[in-house]
């Protein structure tokens, strides 16, 4: 476990020293919040900002996780991973370190977005709600960053990683319940949205907003995260370069 924190510390230090990355990673979700949350002419709810904020929080986490896989890709291209794999530290600590770094990074970004949303007028101040939201975002982050880190381990170079990334990013977001509730969607989209892990995270946060504890959706996310994580551990233990 100590090895995991060592790997995480390295990635976070590098990220924070590249100050510009910290800022640029916040621009996209903030833009969504302002341009979509405040500007879209919506009729199904009076407070679209309250409705869209869970979607944007999950979008921020999704973006952080998708970008996060590139951390491992660069370690691999630049030769760091070869050194790490030849070390006695358990190999899965490389994976866990990346997941933790990516997810913590994502949580820092979502914090900024959350503050932003509250400033803009979203009603999200309840501390219990915020803690539970963080928990959901954490599980979601573990699921996605574990998947992307393992994908990066398998792919050949950064170009193919970027291609894979853009292939899944937009479909995952638009076939989720981020932008509209299921009853406003065409039937086929609602069907897809019910399968999408992104919707699970968003729906769970929305349930919290109205005071429901979303046991099944969190359970679904947890099961997904555990499955993906065990698969990733297996792949990392076997990894050759």
């Amino acid at each position: 476990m100590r090895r995991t924190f060592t790997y995480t510390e390295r990635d976070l230090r590098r990220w924070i020293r590249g100050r510009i990355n910290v800022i640029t990673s916040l621009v996209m979700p903030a833009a969504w919040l302002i341009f979509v949350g405040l500007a879209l002419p919506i009729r199904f709810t009076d407070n679209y900002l309250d409705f869209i904020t869970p979607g944007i929080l999950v979008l921020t986490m999704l973006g952080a996780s998708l970008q996060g896989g590139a951390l491992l890709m660069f370690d691999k291209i630049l030769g760091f991973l070869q050194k790490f794999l030849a070390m006695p530290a358990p190999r899965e600590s490389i994976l866990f370190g990346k997941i933790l770094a990516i997810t913590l990074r994502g949580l820092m970004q979502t914090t900024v977005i959350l503050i932003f949303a509250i400033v803009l007028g979203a009603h999200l101040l309840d501390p219990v709600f915020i803690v539970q939201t963080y928990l959901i975002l954490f599980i979601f982050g573990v699921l996605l960053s574990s998947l992307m880190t393992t994908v990066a381990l398998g792919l050949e170079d950064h170009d193919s990683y970027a291609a894979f990334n853009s292939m899944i990013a937009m479909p995952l977001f638009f076939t989720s319940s981020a932008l509209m509730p299921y009853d406003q969607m065409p039937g086929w989209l609602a069907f897809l949205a019910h399968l999408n892990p992104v919707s699970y995270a968003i729906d769970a946060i929305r349930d919290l907003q109205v005071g429901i504890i979303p046991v099944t959706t969190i359970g679904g996310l947890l099961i997904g995260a555990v499955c993906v994580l065990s698969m990733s551990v297996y792949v990392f233990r076997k990894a050759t370069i």
Partner: protein
Amino acid sequence: MAIIETFGLTKHFNSLVAVDEMDLSIDREIFGLLGPNGSGKTTTVKMLTTLLTPTAGEAKICGYSVATQPCEVRDRISYVPQDMAVDMKLTGRENVVFFAKLYGIPHPRETADEALAQMDLSSRADDLVKTYSGGMRRRLELSQALVHDPEVLFLDEPTIGLDVAGRRKIWEHIISLKNGGMTVFVTTHYMDEADHACDRVGIIDKGRIVALETPNALKSLHCHDIIAIRGEGEYHGTIVPDVTFIGKIGDELRFKAISGEDSGIPLLRALSDSGLKVQSVVIRQPTLDDVFLSLIGDQDETVAFDHHRFRTMLRRRA
């Protein structure tokens, strides 16, 4: 028991035989693996460092099998690949402390300071690595590799891309590590460096070890005297007794002879008769470069660039 032992070590990549039935026994010395690009050097190192699984055969480090006891092997080795991977945005000290923590060393900070001092980096330890020169970055990698006091150090092209002073310094450090009892396995294609620093060298070609000796033994075994001739005109394969053509480097023809003094004049005459206008003749002691040339031949002149093979190699590196 030797520190590094391999028995029939073999690696195939689909139809490409990268390493073919390699038998080695290396013990507390600097062992240099020399060979042209694509001859299997890096693949060998990757198998010995547990990064690749051998297709056949066996390799043991300190008595532990790389295939079935990789964790025990990783405990005893350090591997510095040729890419120079150090974190530019961290300081030299942070880079080494990071490795010390990964190795689970009891006092990471103190140990890191020692390793930095050992590589003469103490005065710059708190500067960001992006301000380091190439030679300093390589020494920083050596510090990282040394924090857990390994028994075997694997270095893949340790001096590639460094200036002359940087190279000399790296080799001084490698030699002092060996004198401290460490086994060093190094790949290189700088012959002069291998000649000067390695206790034994193995020359590898197309995955096979074609020669394995001390540099001096190799030189006296494979070449006696070297006659190097520069001239105008084509070489038509003229040969005189006791002289063998070994290759052409630039516009210089190289021959090996049992006695350069005895064969020099007849060779010159024969070359002039065949129409070559000789401009200069040098008779000298052989270098490892000559041994390499006579064993492997002149790669650039004889073998066309194989694009497919090159891409396979790159992919393997990535």
